[in-house]
């Protein structure tokens, strides 16, 4: 059924169709509507789930982990300060191999207080062992929640679905809400290999000596490495059933491109307007939107970028004292490759400053007029 819904509700519908059984969440702008709709669905019986209205995000994640270990499918959503407060338990989720699925609305970190979008909140959680998907439309948000449960539960690794504050969270779009029975056929009930049950007692997460700890982490990494292929497989299966392919990246006119904007989140669609304009002028531009950020889709990115002379990575985030984070990641993916493009790193749009068509035009002007970047970081739209 087609519905006009906001990005936040796309998360709620995704969780509902996935038949999340335990939801524990705490309100934070701009995530609140995710939780409000789910709480209504639980109240009116649309969703048969327990909704725990906890007193903090730390407790939200802790409750999800308990429920997940008990064998229930769990969902939560948060943003910025809330995600940061969960940090300890994000490690707990992946280290404990608990496939929680969480929505995170990208919001800039305080201080100063901001409710507007940038990616430093979720990218600060890069190394916590979560799968991260950056979405660019409400349809993609809904679909990815369902896919994420499938991927997470297969590998027992938690997933984070990331969307831009307001630009997506509060934007209404037409979304095809799939039928429940079809989703049920795609996503079987959660049936973990181990769980907290007196029928088969195990101790989870106890003291682990140097003799064993490293192997647990090695296994987590090995399973992480399986994610890209599984995303492809489950994404194609999704396409067969629902007509929409869900991949690791989203390419726009990349095949013959000589210049590519690498983006993530909604900014990619703005980039495409400028790609079209550049093409009209005879410049073969393209856009590569990275959707799967962790694990990093090395193969995909390499196969696309190694054919291109020039690449502009656009970051709505920064690793202070280093570079934009996608820029680092793309450079590290291309390091040592036989054909290396010239890669430029741009930082823009922090704290919700708009990323517009002019932003991409300025980026293209810079990159196309230079053989190398003149600065380590090229700032666009900053009042210096």
């Amino acid at each position, binding site marked *: 059924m087609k519905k006009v819904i906001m990005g936040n509700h796309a998360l709620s519908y995704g969780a509902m169709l996935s038949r999340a059984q335990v939801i524990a969440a705490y309100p934070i702008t701009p995530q609140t509507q995710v939780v409000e709709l789910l709480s209504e669905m639980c109240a009116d019986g649309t969703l048969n789930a327990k909704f725990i209205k906890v007193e903090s995000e730390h407790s939200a994640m802790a409750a999800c982990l308990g429920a997940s270990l008990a064998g229930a499918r769990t969902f939560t959503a948060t943003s910025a300060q809330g995600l940061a407060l969960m940090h300890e338990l994000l490690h707990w989720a992946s280290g404990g191999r608990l496939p929680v699925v969480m929505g995170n609305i990208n919001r800039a970190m305080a*201080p100063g207080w901001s409710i507007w979008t940038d990616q430093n909140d979720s990218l600060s959680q890069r190394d916590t062992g979560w799968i991260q998907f950056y979405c660019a439309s409400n349809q993609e948000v809904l679909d990815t929640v369902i896919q994420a449960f499938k991927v997470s539960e297969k590998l027992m690794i938690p997933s984070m679905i990331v969307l831009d504050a307001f630009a997506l969270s509060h934007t209404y779009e037409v979304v095809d809400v799939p039928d429940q029975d079809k989703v049920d056929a795609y996503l079987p009930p959660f049936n973990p290999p181990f769980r907290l049950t007196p029928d088969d007692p195990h101790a989870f997460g106890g003291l682990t000596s140097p003799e064993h700890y490293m192997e647990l982490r090695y296994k987590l990494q090995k399973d992480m490495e399986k994610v890209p292929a599984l995303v492809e497989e489950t994404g194609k299966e999704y396409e067969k059933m629902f007509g929409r392919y869900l991949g690791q990246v989203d390419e726009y006119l990349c095949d013959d491109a000589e210049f590519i904007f690498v983006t993530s989140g909604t900014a990619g669609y703005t980039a495409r307007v400028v790609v079209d304009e550049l093409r009209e002028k005879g410049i073969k531009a393209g856009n590569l939107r990275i959707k799967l950020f962790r694990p990093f889709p090395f193969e995909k990115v390499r196969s696309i970028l190694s054919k291109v002379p020039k690449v502009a990575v656009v970051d709505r985030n920064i690793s202070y004292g280093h570079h934009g984070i996608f820029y680092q990641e793309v450079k590290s993916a291309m390091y040592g490759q036989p054909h290396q493009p010239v890669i430029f790193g741009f930082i823009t749009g922090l704290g919700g400053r708009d990323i517009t068509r002019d932003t991409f035009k300025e980026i293209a002007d810079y990159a196309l007029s230079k053989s190398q970047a003149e600065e380590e970081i090229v700032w666009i739209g900053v009042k210096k």
Partner: protein
Amino acid sequence: MTKERKMTLTIPKEELMSPGHLACQGCGASLAMRLALKALGQRTVVCIPACCWAVIDGPFPHSSLDIPIYHCAFETAASSASGVKAGLEMVGDTETTVLAWAGDGGTFDIGLQALSGAAERNEDIIYACYDNEAYMNTGIQRSSATPLGAWTTTTPVKHYKKHPKKDIIGIMAAHRIPYVATASVAYPEDMVKKFKKAKEIKGTRFIHIFAPCPAGWKSRPEDTIKLARLAVQTGYFPLYEVEYGEKWTLNLKIKERKPIAEYLKLQGRFRHLKDDEIAMIQKEVDANWERLLKRCEQ
């Protein structure tokens, strides 16, 4: 000839809060700050966690308060204030009053751990909680201060709040800190008196302020004071204080309490309640009132 009656104004004239702040019409929380600062004076530092007040103050680079403000993380009002007090003392300022100013969510829920820690250490701070009975800044979600029977966006009408409000005064009194009090924006003299009294005490002081929120309660802005007064007159939010966890004093005796229905009916958040549910709430108010009277008699 009628005799001229004289009233003495006990509320200081000094204004430390200026107009131009961002509060909604009829906001109880903004009145509460204005009154509290009149009592505490300019040598006050305030720590404000995420809450409406983090916004009411005004956007960067503006501020509507004439005192320094530390905008701190949501769960850290009490621990931030503990640090500020220690820091000030170490740089030679032992005079400044350190005030933590948080909403009910920042106090009853996410900040309770830090508050309990500070109270147990008897930190030399005043902790004021303005209670509008929900997370208003994020758009009216329940907190553990939301009363029994109330609608919020996370306690929809079909599943209205089924648990009574957390007894925060009981919790704070159990820490045996020097001073715990309730206050209401409808009783400004009483509130100013309490903040002045708190200022003269050393150790952790906790003041729980009843602050109606028209936007969240679905009440009329002009009813804010009326509602706050009714909350006291019905015995729903009595004015009292507790010293060292031992000495309980009722500050305003009420001979005949008004029925709670009078208070409830002015607010959209209770509109769905049926007579038997109102009776249940009345019972809850009665029981709390009786319990309080007993404590105050001892």
